[in-house]
């Protein structure tokens, strides 16, 4: 078990470092922050001075080592825009993003899983077909289309909800809905197929033949088995709580991480972009780690030989 956890941690760390390296290189190859920050008409000396002061004149590998070293000392760099620490700038935006993504996650779980399980238990019924139709529609409509359609309906036509901005919980309704609908669809479909698979297993017939009441067959015998694949997907959703709203935050001008990322990328604000990507990678890796540990708790067969 200890070996399993250690191995997982090492892999998690390797993933995070890979993401950091990738972000570092791509950001520097895709544009010059000095040009973007200072504008096109500044004299060459000013550009040189800017590069020197931010260490951008050093060879790439020296910059990279310096960056890595700083990260391990807990120094995430300083924003080129307002010279405040990048980490503080990013963390300041986290609550706003979570205000959208956590309610959205609750909606996804609360509606998606029950809808999928119900559809599986009433396979080929009218309700089942309805659930599949809505689920496919839900996850195939891109969020920028869905967001605009919702704005059109509820803000422009009906005038009952604000089309953008933040401040009150009412402002959060449309963005939360926009984020959650795709996830509800994905989870409904996924839970449905997981549940159909499990309900066809011989041990379900055994439980029924034993005289277990139908709802206890579903609850006690089927759901614990269907939980393993569902947890995988939910883990992914939890991991993307921080990252999950770039497009939607932009549509609804919500002051979260997603908007900060868009602004920082277009300004080539290196430290801030790197800090956001690091945070997203870390969140993803941690939730994957938790899912791996949960597998063991849910399925004793995986406990014996932990997946590597």
């Amino acid at each position, binding site marked *: 078990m200890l070996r399993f956890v250690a191995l997982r941690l090492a892999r998690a760390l390797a993933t995070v470092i890979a993401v950091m390296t990738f972000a570092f290189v791509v950001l520097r190859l895709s544009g010059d922050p000095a040009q973007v920050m200072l504008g096109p008409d500044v004299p060459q000396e000013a550009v040189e001075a800017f590069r020197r002061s931010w260490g951008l004149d050093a060879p790439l590998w020296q910059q990279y080592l310096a960056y890595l070293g700083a990260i391990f000392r807990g120094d995430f760099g300083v924003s080129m825009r307002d010279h405040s620490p990048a980490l503080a700038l990013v963390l300041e935006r986290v609550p706003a993003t979570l205000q959208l993504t956590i309610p959205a996650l609750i909606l996804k779980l609360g509606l998606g899983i029950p809808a999928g399980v119900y559809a599986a238990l009433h396979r080929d019924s009218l309700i089942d077909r309805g659930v599949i139709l809505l689920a496919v529609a839900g996850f195939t409509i891109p969020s920028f289309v869905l967001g605009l359609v919702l704005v059109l309906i509820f803000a422009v036509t009906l005038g009952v909800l604000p089309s953008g901005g933040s401040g009150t919980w009412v402002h959060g309704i449309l963005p939360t809905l926009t984020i959650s609908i795709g996830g509800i669809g994905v989870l409904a479909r996924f839970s449905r197929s997981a549940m159909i698979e499990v309900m066809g297993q011989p041990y379900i017939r055994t439980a*029924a*033949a*034993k005289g*277990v009441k139908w709802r206890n067959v579903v609850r006690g015998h089927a759901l614990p088995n269907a939980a393993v694949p569902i947890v995988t997907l939910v883990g992914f959703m939890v991991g993307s709580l921080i990252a999950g709203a770039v497009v939607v935050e932009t549509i609804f001008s919500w002051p979260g991480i997603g908007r900060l990322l868009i602004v920082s990328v277009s300004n080539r604000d290196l430290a801030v972009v790197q800090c956001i990507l690091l945070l997203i990678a870390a969140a993803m890796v941690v939730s994957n780690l938790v899912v791996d540990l949960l597998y063991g708790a849910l399925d*004793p067969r995986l406990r014996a030989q932990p997946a590597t």
Partner: protein
Amino acid sequence: MDRLVEIRDLRVAFDGVPVLHGIDLDVAPGEALGLVGESGCGKSVTWLAALGLLPAKARVTGSVRLGAGELVGAPRETLETVRGKRIAMIFQDPSSALNPVIRVGKQICEALRLHRDLRGAAAKAEAIRLMEMVGIPDAPRRFDLYTHEFSGGQCQRLMIAMALAGRPDLLIADEPTTALDATIQAQILELLARLRRETGMATVFISHDLGAVAQVCERVCVMYAGRIVEAGPVERLFAHPRHPYTRGLFDAIPQMSGPRRRLVPIPGTVPDPRALPPGCAFAPRCTRAHDACSRTRPDLLAQPDGRTLACAYPVPEARHDSFSTERAMT
């Protein structure tokens, strides 16, 4: 004859395709009955239908009476009180027939709680007693293990323990030894025979293995394409099979004693239930078939020697040859 279960004209159709064409079958209390036939002949479907365990798309008609109660068309709540309590069922491939994420002890205790209202320590003690009864060594320690920590044969023992938990009047053993290797098969058969002696419960043994049936059963029904074609006491049927299909099943068994002899397979394959021949379903594969066989289907009729038989041109009764129960036992 005193009857525990009385099946009359039981028919099952899947999506409009009939797979069971009117089965009449009685099980007496304490009796051991064998159901024999190739895969898909309706042996298991008969009992899954009786207990209401077929998928919703299956249409079941006819009658299955258990005591005074009718099971066909009975509400789910009624069937739930019969399943495991009056009629228990065990299945083939025991490793996948037990729930992989629930401790085996808990699975047995669930049956004890449902049917005998035993809980907590009392349930655990009884579950361990049942595990020991079916031959699980070191039962108290293994109570908390999961199915993947047991071998296939032990899983079948656990299935049997679970089936015994409700003290059923009838145990349906659906190919209980098919997925197991030969030595384990013999042990499980012995266990089933011993448990029947000790508990007095009736057993229906579903198998395509004639030898296994001979070892466990007193009476046997041979099924073909959704019908019973021959039934009777095991010794009589095995000594002188009269239906050409029954005879064919014996000819296909390798002989352990005596000179080596080429096996005689039954030519052809089981007919597609969607396109059954109009007459006797076995006629296209039968070496004794006459023209009439492919037009009119013979009824299952009682014979003077106590068996029932559905064949217009059966193997002659007087024929005495090398068939013996001893051979079937091999």
